[in-house]
């Protein structure tokens, strides 16, 4: 009798545990108001305004004067990029910026795609909305929201957008792309109140997608975009049909992760580690801790005193370029720290890099973009969204030079329906900007579409 009761209890408990486990946990959130002062009494203004990036001679004159009056700081001898942006190479970049870079032309390029603004929760949200020019008959376009990170902007996706909206192969999927600027970044208004974190951004973007009439859509993100789109999937798992990320640092260290760090080197098969995983993760102390500490100073100060560190950058274009472009060097490949020119132009053109800097400069958004770190970290790391797994079908693109390497096992801890895990042949943190070749996009698109009949294979 006693044994039977015991067995029944154990089985019951097991079933309860499994049901509990498979029950989709949904992240909860409440509406906010981020505009200046108190929210108005009338209903929200839901109109959408077309927007164009503009510039003026005054803006350029002021920029050039500031560049000309920059007080240079010579780098230490033989220091390359180890102390930050090297001053010798900086002079060349600045000279290009001052004499050759044509901002008006870049503005025209920015305006190639239609920009819009609409007010959500008290702040103006800027976004690009790119519809495919031709849709082959019988196919429907797939709506996709792509979210950038720091120190990037919507411009990161400019190379990617045509590949998604105008595929060269007629058999490919066709996307309708929405690229918003995170509030506080680029042409989106900065929140005026404390507390605007990734969950708020996710909620605002859901509202944006609804306002644009999308009932269901796909989402892609890297850097902060990863967290914002992940939060979107957690907030409304039914609305987000698929999630694609190229960055997924473990949000909550669990037992499997701890074990894999301790034993992974000895028993790689146990944790499904590839040779590349081993190479990137071990020795764990050096690769995971020391390297992270060396590269996370910006994060620490932005997560604590954004207004102190950002003040000068908003006042000095050269300082801003130094601060932002160093990341484009080091995060693309750590080995670039040992190069006199930081390897910047190996993967990017100065035009693209400076356009991104100019988006920060002309909109004066560096401080508000940094505050996003404080809002996300300031509340502690134990936020509800870091505890809830993601049940939306997920694709992960694993770029070899990403800042924090995440083996499949770790990604799976968070993304329970990991449909694809693609190991890329090359590329770093700024994947969308760096690797603009069709093949990688194909992998992205097939990952995004779990229902797609195409076999999903590694692109390289």
């Amino acid at each position, binding site marked *: 009798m006693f044994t039977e009761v015991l067995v029944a209890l154990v089985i019951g408990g097991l079933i309860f545990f499994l049901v509990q486990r498979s029950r989709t946990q949904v992240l909860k959130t409440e509406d906010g108001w981020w505009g*200046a002062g108190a929210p108005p009494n009338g209903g929200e203004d839901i109109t959408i305004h077309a927007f164009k990036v503009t510039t003026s001679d005054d803006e350029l004159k*002021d920029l050039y004067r*500031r560049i000309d*009056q*920059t*007080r240079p*700081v*010579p*780098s*230490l*001898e*033989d*220091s390359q990029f180890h*102390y*930050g*942006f*090297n*001053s010798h190479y*900086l002079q060349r970049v600045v000279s290009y910026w001052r004499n050759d870079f044509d901002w008006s032309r870049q503005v025209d390029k920015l305006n190639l795609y239609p920009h819009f603004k609409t007010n959500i929760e008290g702040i103006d949200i800027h976004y690009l909305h790119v519809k495919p020019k031709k849709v082959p008959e019988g196919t429907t376009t797939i709506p996709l929201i792509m979210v950038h990170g720091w120190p990037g902007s919507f411009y990161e996706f400019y190379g990617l957008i045509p590949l998604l909206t105008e595929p060269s192969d007629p058999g490919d999927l066709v996307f309708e792309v929405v690229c918003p600027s995170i509030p506080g970044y680029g042409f989106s208004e*900065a*929140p*005026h*109140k*404390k507390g605007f974190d990734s969950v708020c951004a996710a909620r605002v973007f859901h509202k944006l997608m609804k306002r644009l009439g999308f009932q269901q859509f796909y989402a892609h993100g890297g850097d902060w975009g990863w967290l914002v789109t992940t939060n979107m999937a957690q907030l409304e798992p039914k609305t987000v049909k698929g999630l694609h990320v190229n960055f997924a640092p473990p949000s909550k260290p669990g037992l499997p992760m701890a074990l894999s760090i301790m034993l992974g080197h000895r028993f790689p098969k146990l944790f499904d580690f590839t040779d590349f995983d081993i190479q990137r993760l071990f020795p764990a102390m050096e690769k995971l801790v020391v390297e992270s*500490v*060396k*590269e*996370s*100073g*910006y994060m*620490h*100060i*932005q*997560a*604590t*005193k*954004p*207004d*102190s*560190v*950002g*003040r*000068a*950058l*908003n*006042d*000095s274009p*050269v*300082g*801003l370029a*130094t*601060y932002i472009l*160093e990341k484009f060097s080091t995060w693309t490949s750590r080995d670039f720290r040992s190069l006199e020119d930081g390897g910047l132009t190996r993967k990017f053109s100065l035009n693209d890099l400076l356009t991104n800097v100019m988006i920060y400069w002309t909109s*004066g*958004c560096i*401080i*508000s973009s940094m*505050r996003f770190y*404080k809002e996300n970290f300031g509340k502690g790391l134990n936020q509800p969204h870091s505890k809830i797994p993601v049940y939306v079908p997920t694709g992960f693109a694993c770029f070899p030079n990403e800042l924090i390497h995440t083996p499949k096992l770790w990604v799976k801890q968070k993304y329970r329906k990991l449909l694809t895990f693609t190991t890329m042949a090359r590329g770093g943190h700024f994947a969308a900007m760096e690797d603009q070749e069709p093949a990688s996009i194909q992998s992205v698109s097939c990952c995004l579409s779990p229902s797609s009949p195409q076999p999903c294979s590694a692109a390289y």
Partner: protein
Amino acid sequence: MSPPHRSCIFPGCHSVQGDGAVSSFKFPKEDNVRKRWIDFVKRSYCGEFKITTITRLCSVHFTPDSYSNCHQVKSGYLKSLLTLVIGAEPTPSVPGLHPPVPPTAGATIPATGITCSPESVDQTITCELSPLDCTMQRLQVLKETFSGLDAVQQQLAICSAVAAGGILAYLMLRRREVKSIPLGEGWWGAGEKPLLEDDKVYPFKVQTSDEEIKDLHERIDRARYSDALEDGGFHYGFNSTHLKKVVSYWRHEFDWKIQVSVLNKYPHFKTKIEGLDVHFIHVRPPHRENQKVLPLMLVHGWPGSFYEFYKILPLLTENQDGLAFEVICPSIPGYGFSDAPRKQGFDSLATARVFLTLMERLGFSQFYLQGGDWGSLITTNMAQMKPQCVKGLHLNMLNSTRGFKVLMSLMIGPYLPFLVGLNREDVRRLFPFFEKNVWEILRESGYFHIQATKPDTAGCGVNDSPVGLAAYIMEKFSSWTDLSNRNLMDGGLERKFSLDDLLTNVMIYWTTGSIVSSMRFYKENLKSNPNNRIDAKTGIFVPTGLAAFPHELMHCPKSWARIRYRNIYSYTFMPRGGHFAAFEEPQLLADDIIQFVKKVEK
């Protein structure tokens, strides 16, 4: 044939029988009494001796109550010799003759003796025998004692001897651990080191020009502000609404020319050391009769400068009970008017060496040191490099070490502080530990992290924007003076400082363009794990005085400080004040320095 020489066998006692004043006695026959006589002699006798019929011990070694006829003989009533009572034992009682044997219970020494003065029992004597003999004799005694023990006792004795030996060896090693760290060498100028270096000391004056001020004002006028968050206070950094007010004062009321003349109130100098022009001020006290003048070096930190000391200087150079200081305040290379190193690796050890060279060049062979922030590390390194030159080290900030002892006091401290050497004030300042020493430090150390990794990235913009520089520097003067200042819209800046003083410090960074090189000092010091550096593993043996200010970022109790600072003369819980002690509470700090120096001078 002369009769056998019947002198006293006791070493160093030259009494001979028949001297009149003394009597000699044969060794008794009873075994146990005889043994005690022999033991008595053995205690002082080196080498072997044989008891024969002529071996004597004289009356000097016996107390009056050992004799049956003492009183009669002394009064002259009896003319015969002294006679010992049966079982009488010799007693150590002669000055300069008997080795010190602690008087045991029962071995009372009489108030009056025939020849002995009992007051001298405690006096030590010098062994007249060769040290080798002494050792041999003691070994012999040890051997005999040892062989007298049974097997278990022997094993026990061996074990305890080994253990004691181990502990002793460990203590010896610890004592012998490096007490000073090597000076090392370096060359930090641009290019190759020249064969000869100019070691003259040149006077220097701070200067400014209208162009400099015009450029500054232009930049200030063009500053691009962005809105502060509502109710952000100073939590997000320098509040931009208040920054506008500060900058408006800077632009319209602050007079740099007046401040330059304030800076030039004290004589400035520069001299070249290791390829770098090192700037310093050198202030002598006014001459007075009967005044002891002590040289003292004050070393600043980040984001301060030599100007931090301008309020404490007059307090130190004035006469206090016959003491006055001759003060030297250098600028750390890379800070203020000192040259910035052009090569990698200029850390606190290099700075300490440069400053030691500076003191040597100025002709000081012994001096006092004071420092806070980086100054505390630099002065500590100086004391480790040349302990013989540093008479005393006074610090108003120190980093706690890590280790078992610290861990123990963290665990036990909140409950039983006295067990781990913490007092009530320590507990109040340390706990709750995680909130005060981990989270709070994480919140306040972002600047540290970025400066220790990418100083050039962080500093480039700051060097280009005066408003950005002021925000970056002055935020520290708000938060580090009192963390609760972060809740205030104005950061509580003017509660403790005047805007003139704060902006003068900012101007020193601005006009010299030294913010990036000052930030690099963090990277150089943290290139390798600071806990593995030689200075972290070496104790400090010079007299040390510590002033613990209540709002210092991290509190270090005396029991933790003692782990490294082995010779703490004074440890003071200061009643008020924060990180910038000299700038904020000059009188309190000066008083503490003076009381510390007085203690050392005694």
